[in-house]
């Protein structure tokens, strides 16, 4: 075990992959010698060569088009989109190409070797275009898998699982935690199974569900709740697609209450899908309406970011509302 921040953990997962497969390539804007604007790919070009770790021209659709081709060829394609806010020029390549490659060809071809890494989320004073959480757009696309880690240990194990999974995966990295989150991480290889949520803390009164950087927020809210005598069960969804209905339903069956929290705007956010499914699965066990504590339906703000974000106080208010319903 070693103390690592999330960037070190991601770098370690990439390093293992590059050593494992002689044709694996890492590419994106500024990922080469510079090691990426957040330094996630630091040192990898020196180690594996310019032909395997390289800067691309400034073209997100090109990065994903190239990645689809490389993955279809059979090489692990590790594409980085510098900010999730800039993934939209590549939307067609991801939604119409990556996601449908296997299906449309009857499995003659596939891009299971594709992994897209992209930093998402707010909390860095990034305003409209360095803060977005676009997971819900992609969650509406059969053929993709979506994964979000909450800490360095999770990041390494989940990223390795994404890379080895034989489907195209988008790995959303909570950029606010890149350096802020530090923890014990094994230096050796390990994987965390995709599609499985994790009960981070057991509780009895209300289930709190989030993913990525929002986990820290609901944990803080749970502490406030505990002081108020309310016991929260905390779950990290980890995989948004496919998502672990069973673990969430089991928890809500026990607590009778569910609060979902994400940074993305509330309308049509992934919380809506979870709420719809869980009310169907747990209808007779629910003690109160399922609540969502999310971003407002605005573009991501700058000066008023604190007011916008679903912070621990807003989550705590929802907990009280749910319990007192």
């Amino acid at each position, binding site marked *: 075990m070693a103390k690592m921040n999330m960037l070190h953990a991601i770098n370690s997962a990439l390093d293992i992959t590059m050593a494992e497969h002689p044709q694996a390539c890492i590419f994106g804007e500024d990922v080469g010698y510079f090691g990426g604007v957040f330094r996630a790919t630091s040192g990898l070009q020196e180690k594996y060569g310019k032909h395997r770790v390289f800067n*691309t021209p400034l*073209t997100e659709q090109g990065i994903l088009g*190239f990645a*689809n081709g490389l993955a279809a060829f059979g090489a692990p394609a590790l594409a980085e989109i510098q900010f999730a806010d800039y993934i939209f020029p590549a939307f067609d390549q991801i939604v119409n190409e990556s996601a449908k490659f296997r299906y449309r060809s*009857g499995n*003659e071809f596939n891009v299971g070797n594709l992994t897209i890494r992209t930093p998402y989320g707010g909390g860095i004073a990034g305003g409209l275009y360095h803060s977005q959480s676009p997971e819900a757009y992609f969650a509406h696309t059969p053929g993709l898998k979506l994964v979000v880690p909450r800490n360095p240990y999770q990041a390494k194990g989940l990223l390795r699982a994404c890379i080895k999974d034989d489907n195209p995966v988008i790995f959303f990295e909570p950029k606010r935690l890149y350096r802020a989150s530090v923890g014990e991480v094994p230096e050796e290889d390990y994987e965390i199974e995709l599609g499985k949520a994790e009960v981070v803390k057991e509780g009895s009164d209300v289930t709190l569900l989030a993913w990525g950087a929002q986990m820290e927020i609901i944990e803080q809210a749970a502490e406030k709740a505990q002081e108020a005598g309310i016991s929260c069960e905390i779950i990290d969804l980890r995989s948004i697609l496919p998502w672990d209905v069973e673990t969430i339903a089991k928890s809500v069956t026990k607590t009778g209450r569910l609060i979902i929290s994400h940074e993305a705007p509330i309308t049509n956010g992934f919380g809506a899908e979870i709420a719809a499914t869980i009310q169907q699965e747990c209808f007779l066990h629910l003690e109160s309406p399922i609540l969502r504590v999310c971003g407002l339906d605005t573009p991501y703000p700058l000066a008023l970011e604190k007011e916008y974000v679903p912070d621990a106080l807003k989550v705590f208010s929802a907990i009280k509302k749910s319990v007192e319903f």
Partner: protein
Amino acid sequence: MINPNNISLNISHALEFIDGHALNIPTLKILGDNGEILDGATAPELDKETALKIYSTMRFIRLLDERMQAAQRQGRVSFYMQCLGEEAAVTASAAALKHDDMIMAQYREQAALAYRGFSLDNFMNQMFSNELDLGKGRQMPIHYGSNELNYMTISSPLGTQIPQATGYAYGQKLNHIDAATGELASEIDNVTICYFGEGAASEGDFHAGLNMAAVHKAPVVFFARNNGYAISTPADEQFKGDGIAARGVGYGIKTIRVDGTDTLAVYAATQAARKIAAEQGDPVLIESIAYRLGAHSTSDDPSGYRSKDEEAEFRAACPIERFKSWLLKQGWLNEAEDEAAKDKIREEILAALKVAEKVQKPALEELVSDVYDTPIPALQKQYEELKEHIKQHPEAYPVTAGRIK
């Protein structure tokens, strides 16, 4: 001198603009209208066997297109797209490749797939989206694909295959990492050819794909089929530059323009382009000039946007007839045998059509397979619910109801 802007260091003191058409790119033409080699032109090395295979492929595609166009009009298939007028461009370029080079096509390149050996039954099974279709009945007619024949499955969105070809070709290069130095060898076994139309070249993916191929030295032969029309939009409403070829130079890519109705010119240019890609590891751009004689697809009617006179002018310059004249001059083809072969092919096509249209549709399971490598739990649940529903209402779902396990 350092050159941070990556430009030619050529200073001028005269204020002068370069004209937007300064390049004035020529079109390579080798074969004359009557099958003669034109003065000053050099015929490519083309053996009798290859020449006849090119010819028989073009002949087959012309007959297949005629029959399937009619089959669509009869309501037997939902959709079709003809290669009419572009048979030489597609067939001769595919013939200049190695059999295991990757082909990433747009949709009008069925001749390239036929050249590779895709069987008549395979063509039919795809068009009838029956259970024998390699694509499992999921895409509209003419969206062929074959892993065995290195022909990437067609995708309807235009131009998406262009940056993908760059990535695929880069992968072909990764097969040749020098074990001693860890560096890429420039000489490689296989390349990728990427076909697209002059309309698709307006998509952002064209720019992305060509620029990345140049920057990353991906061995792609980009083959732009400039056939004059993108559905109804003529090329002069698509771009103002000198065709697509002028852009190749902008990307720093070796570029050539050929007469796409001239089998020998297309073959010669593609052969030379492949050599550059395989030996230098660089991309090449070929712009082929031809005319889309048919409609865009069976859903289109060109009489609404172009004249019969215009079509007649180009119909006279048939690429197949021109190549046939050359073959006759070579003494490699016999007119009577050719006519007999056409009759036989027509019969075979009709027979295959009659078989394929009776083959049943794919089983219900193929609705949910291949979305992922294995169905995810939510989809598995939806599938089970759908099966139960169909079992309760079998009369409403006659295609699959009888075969649900």
